[in-house]
């Protein structure tokens, strides 16, 4: 099944802004999705591992609604789901 993923995070001095579709197996969880993308050759770096290990965890949204990190990363995905991972920066 196809999952739509949006990644917008600040890593060091780099702004990573990527939107893509990922084909995953039935029953895939959010955590598995992130591992799958990191393990693929889509990006040179393991972006999801990096951002999920940050001192402040990212904001993760499933179909626009908040998912608690890391507690709810076992949430199973469905065809056509939209996943957003965003840096939790709020200042300015």
């Amino acid at each position, binding site marked *: 099944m196809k999952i739509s993923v*949006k990644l*917008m*995070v*600040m*890593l*060091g*001095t*780099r*702004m990573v*802004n990527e*939107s893509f579709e990922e084909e995953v197996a039935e029953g895939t969880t959010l955590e598995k999705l992130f591992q799958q993308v990191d393990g693929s050759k889509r990006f040179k*770096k393991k*972006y999801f*591992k*990096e*951002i999920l*290990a*940050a*001192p*402040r*965890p990212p*904001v993760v*949204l499933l*179909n*626009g*609604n*908040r998912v*608690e*990190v890391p*507690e709810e990363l076992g949430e199973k995905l469905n065809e056509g789901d*939209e996943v*957003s991972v*965003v*840096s*939790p*920066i*709020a*200042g*300015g």
Partner: protein
Amino acid sequence: MGAKGYMGKVMWVDLTNGTIKREDVPDEVYRKFLSGYGLGAKMLFDRINPGIDPLGPENILGFCSGLLTGVGSVFTGRFEVVAKSPLTGGWGDANCGGDLSPAIKKAGVDAIFFTGISPKPVYLVVDGDKAELKDAARVWGKDAVETEELIRKQLGDDKAKFKLATIGPAGEKKALIAGISNDRGRYAARSGLGAVMGSKKLKALAVKGEQKIEGANPEAIKTLTKEFQKGLKSADFLGKVLSSRIVNIAGIMTRVSPLATAQPGTLWCQILKKFGTAGITAMSSESGDSPVKNWGGSGHHDFPLARASKIGDDAAIKYQVKKYGCYSCPISCGGICEVKEGPYPLSETHKPEYETLCAFGAMCLVDDLQAIYKLNDLCNRGGVDTISCGAVCAFAIECVENGILTKQDVGGLDLGWGKAEALIKLTEMIIARQGIGDVLADGVKRAAKKIGKGAENFAMHAGGQELPMHDPKLDPGYGLAYEVEPTPGRHTIASGTWQELMLVHRYSKDADKVKQMKSHKERLSPRGKAKNQAVNSKVLQLANGSGVCLFGLGCGPKFPLYEYLNAAAGWSLDEDQFLLIGERIETLRHAFNVREGITRKDMKMQGRASGNPPLPRGPHKGVTLDMDTMAKEFYQEFGWDFESGKPSKERLEKLGLDEVIKEFYG
């Protein structure tokens, strides 16, 4: 008399009769209130009677430099404008970077206060020891930037030695969302202080001087600056060299390196350096930091990343031709921009801040970057606060959407979400006070009252001040500040975010250690937030008494605030004594409001902001904040009565605020 960082004098300008005098200020006042808005609060509390008209002659408008400005410290170039606010009816202040603050001190004073109302438009020229009021007939009606240019011409100031503060037409017309411009578009925007300046028929001040500003221990200041900058450079090094790995290894580093404990601040600093505050625009829309569609929408659904990215980070700096830094700033988060393409060309304009990009972007669902640049430039020239202007535009759109305002009411404009061209026209009408613009120019609270028909449901404010662009449902600390700080609806004082960026426990041994891996549920819990929020607030009072930029406090290495102040003023105060000064300034500003009859219930945010009713979808789906519990704990931290707002007599005695004891306890 040895050097002490401050000048020990203030200037009083009586606009009614044109007299100007300098007044000595006892050392004791600086020791108790610092300079900046601490000094301003002391002057205004003592000399303003409660109940006066903020736009009348009795109001006092002050431009206050910071105690640390010019002594050799970094991040210390901000000036504070103070007055009774016509927008909130209580204490008003707004600070700005730019270049005015050192000029005030070089002219030999720490602050310039204006009283009365001039019989005709004037501007003040201070040139060292000399000061005079000049006829402003030729600049009255001109925009804020043009005014700066024309006054420089009149003064023969081709080398830009004078530093200016000006108002645009909105300030002249006493629009309550008007601010005060410096350096062609930096803004002391909030509290409606541009209207106070306009009410006094004071178009501008132009200040220069040659007096030396020196601290008691310049060598110590030099060492502190060197060490702090070393910390900043190390953070740069980490950011550039380790790049993506920086975040990954942060967990290890926090155990071994003091620098790494500043991790969130280090990232923030990198964003500021690269993009300015514009860097967070797209992320904030998606994460739920940005209010969307006048606080009724969700970024993911209504202003998704594909649209938000058109106005943030890389896109937002597309037109930047050079970076801009305020006085004594080592990171330069500002930018000078030029737009050569599209329907709204601009030859020179300041880069829009995040607040502006969000206020017209996510709030009004506009993803046309050139239009937002134009709106930003219009506001900067016309002299209105971009936050309030964006908020009042979003309010108007929602009123139209709900049939409360008709097309005829809005002058035939095709007002709707995302309709940038109509917003540009509406902003011009606000600045000129034309048609519906006349109603909107006084902010959403007053506009809703005039319009009626349930418009108050869409008026997003706290205490009359339009809410800033940070949703408390992501960070409830912002909401707490919006409701309990003497300047309601302010995002630059205290929040969970600022505590994390500052690592606020570094400023007080009594603060709880900032916990980074906090779950969102923990963040939303109303209890146990007040202690660190209070420390955060007290530190900010000290910063605003010293001219310190908030970003300097949260950019990685610990800002040596206490050490700088001791070295500048020749004091030997410890952390507790400094925090007591912070509490004193906060309590005096709060007491100003209490004396005006303002209580907490007058400062509450419009319900939608705290999730009442909760949003049906998005990152804040179903979230309702318990603001009263949070506020009650905050009041307890400061010894303020929750109902009346009065500080306890015991606490006032501890603070040595005899002027407040006299007022409330006889």
